């Protein structure tokens, strides 16, 4: 993985010192809250319902065991013994005292981490496929390109005060696990006509109060032009993006109001100008230099079939479920990519304790080359595990409550922090996720239902990605009461779509039953177990679900 060079170390250390001074000045009253707020946000510090919240950047969701161990240490030393992995592949601590945050940032810097650009109207953490560098279906590892974008966008003077925040996602596989079409810029790595590496470029996707699927503005962009083209997009957005209304300030609104054809013309024209300077042309040597940091680990050769793995599956139904749902094919024979579900039945999606973080760090060292990934679905991933080691790994995960075999199933629910923590929320998300998890939690029920992604947001900002949930749940405040709207048919994958509101919302005491009605309707009407929920909704439309939920009018 990427290692800081002298410049990176110096830059992060300088920023920590700067923020320490700003915190000290705030605590002595030299800075008012109005003066301090933009400064703390630039360093990932929010003020939420109960306390300050620190959002830590995990670039493209890649962590070393050393880094995860440090996050566990911080959780125990400065927080309340846990952290929350987010849909942005980041980690949030919910309880740090402001006076302690400089010390937290010092500890993060020791393991080459920081909290910069996790807030504010800048280019945020570049996200990518959580199976990057390991997945069998990958064309190439997207993380070197994400790292190049990270370096280019960090304190970029032209793009630090954009009309609104800006999110870029990159996938290196045709199976889109990074939800690139609901990002401001989505990049899909692909092979060009000459066999070289390049990108399909999507612009103007996003969720929030105005969900939109991105438009493809380039079918193929050579890799050497990555920065020049992204710079061109940013310049068009920075110049023409609205600053008069924060709800209309994202690039998706600009693309929508300008039209995809015209925005493409503007981007291409700007690209010609940027390219003339040659300043942003990515030399092969630089791509190779960054790519070297992400060199695949040297894995011992193994036969494709592991008798230990097969025997354990035959021996234990729980392990067989884990193997089916939580182990994904690796590009190397005899290895698998393991999803560690942070969705125990009835648990809080995305939360991990200090002890769990340290345990996973140890397991990464023992079984996965010291590497961990954070998924936007709020799970952790061990990317390089020998099939022979799976039974032992599973047993150790189980000791820490981390062996739930439900990845991609109905209980693998995304939920934002919601009104239990978040100052923006209108309704709670986590208790609903817990109640749904308990309702559908039996292994038999989950297997019968098959792949089904439920995503819950506690407000229209859609941090819980409800717009792209196969079943999306949006909490709203209706005259002081929590009410949940249901959308159906959303998807964040390569067939991206925004879910459609099925009808009036449901009260708290009704919504779990309503979701079960939707699921039962699917089970009744599907063509068979091979037709997943999303495919059935797309085939059937909303009507049968409306009728089941509201009766026939």
């Amino acid at each position: 993985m990427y290692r800081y060079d002298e410049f990176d170390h110096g830059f992060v250390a300088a920023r920590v010192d700067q923020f320490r001074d700003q915190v000290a000045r705030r605590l002595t009253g030299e800075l008012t809250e109005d003066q301090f707020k933009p400064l703390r946000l630039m360093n990932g510090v929010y003020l939420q319902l109960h306390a300050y919240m620190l959002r830590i950047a995990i670039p493209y969701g890649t962590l070393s065991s050393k880094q995860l161990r440090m996050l566990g240490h911080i959780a125990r030393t400065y927080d309340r013994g846990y952290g929350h992995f987010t849909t942005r592949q980041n980690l949030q601590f919910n309880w740090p005292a402001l006076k302690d945050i400089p010390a937290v940032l010092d500890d993060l810097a020791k393991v080459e981490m920081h909290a910069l650009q996790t807030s504010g109207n800048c280019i945020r953490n570049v996200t990518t496929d959580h199976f990057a560098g390991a997945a069998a279906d990958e064309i190439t590892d997207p993380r070197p390109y994400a790292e190049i974008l990270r370096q280019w966008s960090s304190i970029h003077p032209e793009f630090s005060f954009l009309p609104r925040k800006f999110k870029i996602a990159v996938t290196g596989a045709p199976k889109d696990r990074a939800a690139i079409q609901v990002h401001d810029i989505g990049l899909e790595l692909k092979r060009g006509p000459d066999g070289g590496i390049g990108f399909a470029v999507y612009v103007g996707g996003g969720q929030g109060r105005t969900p939109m699927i991105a438009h493809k503005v380039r079918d193929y962009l050579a890799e050497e032009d990555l920065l020049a083209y992204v710079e061109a997009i940013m310049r068009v957005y920075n110049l023409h993006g609205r600053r008069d209304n924060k709800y209309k300030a994202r690039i998706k609104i600009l693309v929508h109001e300008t039209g995809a054809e015209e925005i493409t013309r503007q981007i291409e024209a700007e690209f010609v100008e940027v390219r003339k300077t040659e300043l942003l042309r990515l030399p092969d040597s630089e791509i190779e230099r960054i790519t070297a940091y992400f060199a695949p680990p040297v894995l011992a050769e193994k036969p494709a079939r592991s008798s230990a793995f097969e025997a354990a599956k035959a021996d234990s139904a729980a392990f067989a479920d884990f193997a089916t749902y939580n182990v994904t094919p690796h590009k190397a024979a005899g290895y698998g990519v393991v999803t560690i579900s942070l969705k125990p039945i009835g648990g809080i999606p995305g939360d991990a304790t200090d002890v769990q973080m340290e345990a996973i760090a140890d397991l990464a060292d023992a079984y996965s080359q010291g590497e961990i990934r954070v998924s936007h679905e709020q799970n952790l991933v061990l990317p390089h595990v020998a099939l022979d080691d799976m039974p032992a790994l599973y047993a150790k995960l189980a000791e820490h409550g981390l062996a739930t075999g439900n990845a991609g199933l109905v209980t693998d629910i995304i939920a934002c922090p919601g009104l239990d923590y978040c100052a923006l929320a209108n309704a709670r998300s986590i208790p609903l996720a817990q109640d749904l998890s308990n309702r559908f939690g039996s292994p038999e029920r989950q297997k019968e239902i098959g792949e089904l992604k439920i995503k819950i947001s506690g407000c229209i900002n859609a941090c819980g990605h409800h717009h792209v949930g196969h079943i999306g749940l949006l909490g709203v405040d209706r005259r002081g009461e929590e009410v949940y709207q249901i959308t159906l048919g959303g998807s964040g994958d390569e067939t991206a779509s925004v879910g459609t509101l099925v009808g009036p919302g449901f009260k708290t005491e009704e919504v779990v039953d309503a979701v079960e009605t939707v699921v039962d309707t699917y089970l009744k009407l599907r063509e068979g177990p091979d037709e997943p929920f999303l495919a059935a909704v797309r085939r059937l439309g909303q009507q049968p679900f409306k009728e089941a939920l509201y009766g026939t009018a």
Partner: protein
Amino acid sequence: MSAPIQKSAAKTKAATQIVTANRLSDGVVVYLAPDGGWIDRIDSALVAEGADALAEAVAAGKAAEAAQEVVESYPIDVTRDGGRLKPLRLREEIRAVGPTVRPDLLRPTGV
């Protein structure tokens, strides 16, 4: 595992008001106390009865912000419910007691 989900008590009873904020140094939820200080237990908060008392309490909150004791002070509606003060809005109830999904982290409200 999840806590029972309660309805907000909004519009069920006539409201009185108290002033809340977050403490500057650690962000902890606090309430304006009768002695002019800030306390973390809602039941000990100064209850502002009437417009003049409320204006005075809100002014005290703003003064505490200016004095860098607290951040983002504002009045909230509460009702007296037995021996305790109960916020009318669910958001404020959660601020008073802590996340409903972490019973181990619930904070005391009593005097």
